[in-house]
């Protein structure tokens, strides 16, 4: 795996550590997201993906290590650097007493997006995500997929340079999921850098330029899907087979037998 020069890095995580009491969630990970790249963060539940993303966003404070956004240490200018980020959490904790459009407006105001600029972008997003006609309803009545769409629109409304998406396709219908995938590819081609976590390995394989596999708080492997196949010694196999081999969860057949007894 070759080192990525600083000037090419949109986001660089250096020796990040995070513990919750006795549980070591993230154990000194180093990761670089290149400009205009879609980097997939894969790993089983509890492997530290969401914790890593929350540290990038400033929701959690690392116990040790640093986060650099476009070469600048995030702790030095957190407000300015956060303006360049967009985030969709695994389970969006939206303000459910607001309507969809009020929420998007609220987020846009947080990022200082001018009303005129907002209007056209938001209208297109609402149409594209098939939320038009529901935008004036309170979020409390939305389905999980609709909430996810609102979270996605909110993350994109200020045209972020780096997108941090934690299971962003969860709950989306096939059409919206396809739309988001195409949109992410388009954004990446325009220079937006995307850190993308998912459990759906087919999506990672189809969408991501590179993949990093997290397991028990560490990065086990990082590279293109082809490089990972080489590393795992499984040329020609699927990403799923590579993933299961690397994370030591290839004993699934035995587990299924035990569960079905």
């Amino acid at each position, binding site marked *: 795996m070759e080192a990525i020069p600083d000037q090419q890095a949109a986001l660089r995580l250096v020796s990040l550590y995070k513990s919750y009491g006795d549980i070591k969630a993230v154990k000194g990970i180093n990761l670089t997201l290149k400009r205009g790249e879609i980097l997939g963060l894969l790993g089983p539940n509890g492997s530290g993906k969401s914790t890593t993303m929350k540290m990038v966003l400033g929701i959690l404070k690392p116990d040790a290590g640093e986060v650099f956004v476009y070469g600048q240490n995030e702790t030095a200018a957190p407000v300015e650097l956060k303006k360049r980020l967009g985030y969709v*959490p695994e389970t969006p904790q939206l*303000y459910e007493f607001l309507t969809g459009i009020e929420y998007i*407006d609220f987020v846009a105001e947080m990022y200082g997006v001018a009303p005129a600029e907002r209007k056209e972008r938001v209208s297109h997003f609402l149409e594209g995500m098939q939320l038009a006609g529901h935008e004036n309803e309170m979020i409390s009545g939305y389905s999980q997929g609709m909430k996810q769409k609102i979270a996605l629109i909110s993350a994109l409304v200020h045209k972020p340079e780096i997108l941090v998406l934690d299971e962003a396709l969860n709950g989306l219908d096939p059409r919206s999921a396809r739309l988001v995938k195409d949109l992410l590819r388009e954004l990446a081609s325009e220079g937006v850098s995307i850190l993308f976590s998912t459990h759906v390995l087919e999506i990672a394989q189809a969408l991501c330029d590179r993949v990093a596999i997290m397991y028990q708080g560490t990065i086990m492997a990082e590279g293109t899907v082809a490089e990972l196949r080489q590393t795992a010694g499984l040329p020609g196999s699927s990403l799923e087979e590579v993933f299961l081999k690397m994370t030591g969860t290839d004993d699934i057949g035995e587990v299924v037998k035990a569960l079905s007894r």
Partner: protein
Amino acid sequence: MRSGRSGRGGESLFRNPAIIAVIDGVCFAACALIGFALIGVVLALPATQAAPLISAVKESLVFVPALVPSVVLVAGVLFELGASSKFASSDSINWLPVTQAEYVAASTVSVAYAYSVVPSVIMGVTLGPAVRLGYGGTWVEMFLLSCVSLFYGGAIVEILRAAINRVSNVVMGRARRGALVLRLAATIGMILAVEVIFNFVFLIDLVGTFTSALNAVAFLPVLWASLAVRASIVGDTAQNALYSVATILFSGAMLWAAVKVRARYWSPTPSQVTVMGGEYAPGTGSPFFSLFGLSPVEVALVRKDLKGLTRRRELLQYFAIPFVLAIVFLFEVFFNPSSGLGSGGASQTSVGDQLPTWFVGGLFGLIISSISFGQEQRSASLLYSFPLTAKQVLRAKLFTSMLLAMLATVGIFVLVTVLSKPPPLVALENLAIALAIAAQEVLIGTAFGAKYPDFQERPRPRFVDPYGVILMVIVGMTVVVVTALPAIVGEALSSLPGVQSEVRPLFLVSLAFAAAVIGLSYSWASRETKKLFVEFKW
């Protein structure tokens, strides 16, 4: 039973439902001791003085079975109003294989058990008087009937819960923005009605007329238990049996009705509320709020918080605080003529008349500001991810709380001033102190809210850690008293001949103290908010 406890943290004794039984036992024993001591004092009095008191005790025994379900109802309705709407429809009971009857029966027992401390206290206090006056048997019957009453109170709460759920869904689904105003008014109205019914001054008045009015309203099922107790006291076995059986049958009927109402009206899915219609027009901030020097980001936070306060069911009750406290104050005016208020005239210009303004404005400011961080609940994580500084969040939170506290203070001040008609200068002094108290309390509440936030989402959210609430109320109320004290002393001294003009400026001491507290508490609130925004802990 466990729905009110925290979702995180270690095991605590108070998280075990069995603790309710222990508390009941302790309350019963303590109140029984008090009851025995009180009746001992009454019986030691000369016969002429003891007679009316003994008569009052007998009336109280009759009153108890009617009081128990009412208290359960009040507590149940307030509990329901305080419940988070997020949990109203995601209740796992909607999909678990449980029949309506099983659910309602379990829930009724749960409600009855949760509020069993009420009959424990009442039965404890009445045990001594009943035994010493020779009504031991009646007390046992009263105890059993109170238990039955407790259960039908729980069943009625179940009926109300189902009805509130359906009415809320229907109204919210059809009435758009008007529904939000309607719900706010209805909530405040319901809490006010509860407050009126259970105002202590009103209750004392009611007990006096209760027994004499019983015959006229004997058709009301909620009074049958009381009628049975009265029949027992006068030795009317037939009436006693009749009303006792009727009470039990009524409880059964309420349980049956609760099952039917739940089956018919419970809405398992939340209503969809359309707040406004028409083409999307992006918000352009608020020129009004900007006048106060707030940045666009801060204005957006203020508007979001104000919408939350008026739209979230679990927050609506906080709006009722100034109204409820004002009602208490008005009761004092109308039921206690010696308060001097309401009659007007230059002789009723006591600075003490303004105590309600100071306490209502202060307490409301303290409470509404203390929840400002915790009410974000898990959505608070958003604030950490947005490009915001802790100072911006603090300024927005302070402004929202300050705006509401000042409006409440001025409202109560106008009410009190109209009733007490003080000279203009005195009124201005009182207003200055009232606003200073409200400002102090908002800052103190915000500091405690930032230090002890509770972001947990549970059926009945707390927003502030209970330990923090206790400390906050002690500190906040002490500050109100200390701020008011120089003005009160000045008032007392001004009544002395020849010193009026010299002591009037004592109110400036109140303002100076308030200024010092405002400065210190702002600094503290600022430090706590910075600490809070280091990382999101929930």
